[in-house]
């Protein structure tokens, strides 16, 4: 559904029938996740165990965080291809600062997140101020530059043995629950409030939903885009921090291909490439569906080739549903 007013609110128009549709749109991915879990519970005795649920929570955390930044760019009808490379450069620079130079973990974490913010900011600025035609270009450039720099600064070898505080987010547990998953829940809560109840958050939806109307209503699209890409860079670095805890090492090829997992999670979660549509919780479920699918197929000893095929099919089905939904919405309007 295209937003036609400059200040769109969810479920603000077109009566009961569309409202029902919107609820279904939000719940659709959740049903998908539940159905998938049901099937896997039936097929594998190991799937629905506490240990394994916590496994999935851990395995989905990094993608969940990165996908959240990706969601913002997709809401503005954009994309961020550089997240995997930003992740790599952030963590290897943190590795150099902490492990090689022996500085305090706090400085390391600041460096890590700071690099993410800086690269994201650069993405936003090159997109808007250089008037590059599409974020595909600016972020594709950053993707290569950051990956190359990550290889250069590390001389292509991994950095290991991080101090405890840096590993906390990725390795620690609170009782049986991984801290990384708690982090995901907290960050998603914050983003839910940010996107739905703050002016900037509403502008992000508006920019993607109807850029022309947004511009006419006096919102600075450039500013919104710079904020969006900066946040995406920050989220990539945060995902990196979790990864470092998970593997106790920072390596220059970290995050290879993560951009596609993140895009897949947002799309499966109901976000539209046309912009203006998608929710944080949908994205979380999208990331969970991918993690559950991979975990379940691992438990069933299905080859990774087959897993890749399965994820590809899920993406196409999810987007096809999106297309049908747009057609149906257009019919209602006409």
């Amino acid at each position, binding site marked *: 559904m295209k937003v036609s007013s400059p200040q769109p609110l969810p479920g603000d128009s077109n009566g009961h029938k569309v409202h029902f549709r919107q609820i279904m749109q939000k719940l659709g991915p959740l049903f*998908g996740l539940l159905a998938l879990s049901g*099937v*896997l519970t039936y097929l594998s005795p190991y799937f629905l165990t506490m240990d394994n649920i916590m496994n999935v929570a851990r395995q989905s955390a990094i993608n969940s965080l990165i996908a959240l930044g990706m969601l913002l760019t997709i809401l503005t009808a954009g994309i961020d291809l550089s997240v995997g490379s930003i992740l790599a450069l952030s963590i290897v620079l943190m590795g150099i600062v902490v492990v090689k130079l022996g500085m305090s973990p706090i400085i390391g974490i600041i460096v890590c997140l700071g690099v993410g913010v800086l690269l994201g900011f650069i993405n936003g600025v090159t997109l808007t101020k250089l008037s590059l035609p599409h974020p595909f270009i600016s972020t594709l450039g950053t993707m290569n530059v950051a990956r190359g720099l990550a290889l250069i600064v590390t001389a292509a070898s*991994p950095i290991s043995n991080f101090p405890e505080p840096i590993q906390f987010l990725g390795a620690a547990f609170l009782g049986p629950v991984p801290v990384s998953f708690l982090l995901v829940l907290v960050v998603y809560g914050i983003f839910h409030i940010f996107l739905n109840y703050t002016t900037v958050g509403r502008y992000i939806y508006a920019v993607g939903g109807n850029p022309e109307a947004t511009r006419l209503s006096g919102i600075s699209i450039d500013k919104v885009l710079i904020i969006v890409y900066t946040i995406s860079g920050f989220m990539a670095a945060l995902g990196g921090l979790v990864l470092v805890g998970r*593997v106790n090492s920072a390596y220059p090829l970290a995050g290879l*291909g993560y951009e596609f997992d993140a895009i897949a999670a947002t799309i499966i979660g109901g976000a539209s490439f046309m912009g203006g549509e998608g929710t944080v919780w949908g994205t979380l479920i999208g990331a969970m569906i991918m993690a559950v699918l991979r975990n379940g197929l691992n*438990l069933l000893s299905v080859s990774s080739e087959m897993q890749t095929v399965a994820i590809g099919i*899920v993406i196409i089905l999810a987007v096809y549903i999106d297309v049908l939904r747009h057609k149906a919405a257009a019919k209602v309007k006409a």
Partner: protein
Amino acid sequence: MRKGLFSLMATFLMATLITTGCGSTQTQTKKEPDKMKIGVVVKALNSDYWKIVESGAKAAGEKYGVEVKVLGPNAETDVTGQISMLEDQITKKVNALVVAPSQPASAIPVFNKAKGAKIPVILADTDAKWDDKVSFVGTGNFNGGKLAGEYFGKKVAKGGKVVILRGALGDPTHDERANGCVEGLKAAGLEVAVIQPANSERGMAVTVMENIVQSKQEFVGVFATNDEMALGAYKALEAAKMNVPIVGFDGSPDALTSITEGKLNASIAQSPYNIGFKGVEAAIKAAKGEALDKRIDTGTEVINKDNVKQKSDELKKILGK
């Protein structure tokens, strides 16, 4: 209508899962439930090398009557994908794990998790600095590279320079092979002309080799850290009408054919079949609580025109071609 679509999606997923998954569940239920389970997680299953490791592992499984599952991510660079697979094997409570870690340092937290779950871990093909490993089964890529460097010593005159084509920067397997070759060359009184990455690809190796030829760099031999790149380098040098010994790595079927035809000079071969077979053998012993050597050598050898016929026959038997 949408409801219908979602159920369609769910049904489809179910169908996919059932068709792909039921093979394994059936075999699980057919045999007695107490049968020992060994999980083998390799770096990827996309090359002949890992396919041969897999057939070795499965042969050991058949010989000893244990259930062996061989898994690996789509690419050797998918480090976290491999770690997730290991976690899932721990959840499955396998009796022992045989692991070829893509990024050894990164895998240590999950190894510790296995240890916590009382699952013995055997490292295969690639070693890791982890004190609690039961054993390392393999030869190591460093030693293979060194063997290649030393081999050039027998083929070319002292003081000559050798080009090294390597896999992607940051890929530890290729770091080790390249570093090993540098050391082997030094020991043989030879020098390195240049080390260039060609990302383990035949096509890219052609380009890289063409550029090296264009640069008028002098060299008397080429070492590639896998056979694909060696074959690519041969293409480029053939076009440039240059005839220098080219040595690959892996002993892949294509490379053996090329050696037979007198094109590639040699390929360094670890014994992937033995790595798989002895890895599983060690895992079975470990699961039973038997003592094991900390290091089980599976051998590395040079395949050249002298022994290529015998090696190809063996390989054909293993791959069932």
